[in-house]
């Protein structure tokens, strides 16, 4: 065994073997953490996109579609982003495990770090509206994205045969609205005493609204509920207002 030591030292000296430079090791070490950070950022961006997409959707329409709540949720959740987040989570998990001391963390701890990191950072960038901006950009630039990869607010509210319609108010009269839908087509919307107009809806020209009701004939729609384009229109008055013979009671209505 004594020879082994002398032989090894001789080999090191004669073959000029030297310790590899530390910078190479540090490059690899920090490179792995950098990669982890990039994956985490991509996960967070996906999270903020999913959050923005979910925030824009109306989650209570199952009432009107006579559908099971769970089935409805499953039909509109942003699978594309959820799958992407899951992919980034898995990559991030293995990235941590590949680091020098990553094996010391239990899977539950790593999961907590990655899920927490993606969620917190995702919410943080959502506060700056990044998810919304990216979603809009993507929907504009890649039509396939908005048409097939996610359920958008637009696709949710452009189903007149199913009772959902959205558009910009063109004109307002006592019991009728004229709107231009998201495809630019004009619709006559009838309003009666039973129509529920949500508190924060501003029924005046140029305002964008969402309508729940029934398509009665070509380009004619009987409204049952009117909501503002953004949100469900819940103000302090949770029940909203209704129309009566003298006009709208509950929200704002300005004829032209």
């Amino acid at each position, binding site marked *: 065994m004594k020879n*082994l030591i002398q032989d090894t*030292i001789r080999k090191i000296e004669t073959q000029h073997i030297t310790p590899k430079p530390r910078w190479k*090791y540090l490059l690899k070490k920090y490179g792995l953490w950098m990669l982890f950070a990039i994956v985490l950022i991509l996960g967070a961006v996906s999270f903020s996109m999913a959050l923005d997409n979910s925030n824009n959707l109306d989650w209570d329409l199952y009432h009107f579609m006579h559908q099971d709540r769970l089935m409805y949720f499953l039909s509109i959740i942003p699978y594309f982003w959820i799958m992407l987040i899951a992919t980034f989570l898995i990559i991030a998990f293995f990235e941590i495990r590949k680091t020098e*001391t990553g094996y*010391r963390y*239990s*899977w539950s701890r790593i999961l907590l770090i990655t899920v927490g990191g993606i969620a917190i950072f995702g919410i943080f960038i959502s506060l700056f509206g990044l998810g919304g901006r990216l979603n809009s950009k993507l929907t504009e630039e890649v039509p396939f994205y908005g048409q097939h990869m996610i359920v958008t607010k637009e696709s949710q509210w452009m189903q007149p045969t199913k009772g959902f319609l959205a558009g910009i108010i063109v004109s307002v009269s006592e019991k009728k609205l004229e709107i231009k839908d998201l495809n630019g087509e004009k619709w006559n919307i009838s309003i009666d005493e039973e129509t529920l107009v949500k508190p924060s809806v501003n029924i005046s020209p140029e305002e964008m609204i969402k309508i729940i009701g029934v398509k009665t004939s070509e380009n004619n729609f009987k409204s049952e509920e009117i909501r503002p384009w953004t949100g469900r229109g819940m103000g302090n008055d949770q029940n909203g207002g209704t129309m009566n013979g003298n006009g709208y009671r509950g929200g704002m209505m300005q004829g032209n």
Partner: protein
Amino acid sequence: MDEQKAYSDVELIVLSKKNPESFGILMERYQGPLFHYIRRITQLPNEDIEDLLQEVFIKIYQKLNEYDEVLKFSSWAYRIAHNHVVDYFRKVNARPQTNTLEDYEWEKIIHASIHIEKNIMDKDCVEKIKTCIQSLSINYREVLVLRFVEDKEYEEIMDILKKPKGTVATLIKRGKNLLVKKMKEQNINCF
């Protein structure tokens, strides 16, 4: 050189980077434990183990700048040895099939795994149990060797194998369970 023998591993690492002779002291310190570790997880003859050990020491020397003090030097050196052995068997396209363990080493694994009284174990029984242990996969045998022959703590095994503590504990538990199962299958009843 003699006064360096009292130096800590970390101090010797610093000196070794400038002078390979100082690395000789580190090698002297770890050649025995690493030699036996490699012997226990392979079935190679001593000459081959020495060749492997020399390659392991050269790798350690080349990686001296990578050593991080969060690990014990011994764990780090064992890890390099473990990886080198795995690479070696991958290269020669073979796998270690039996452990070349001394009798006392077998005894340690057997006692730790199946809790039997020393005085009721006969030689024939020990031989049968050895066969069962040999039939375990390398993953299980290696953790059993590290835990019960090398007497390593879970944390050290974790650092050597770069596996989470839970995985190490699971491997040890499953290794023991598999051993008991194999003994039952082969109707080995020594108790």
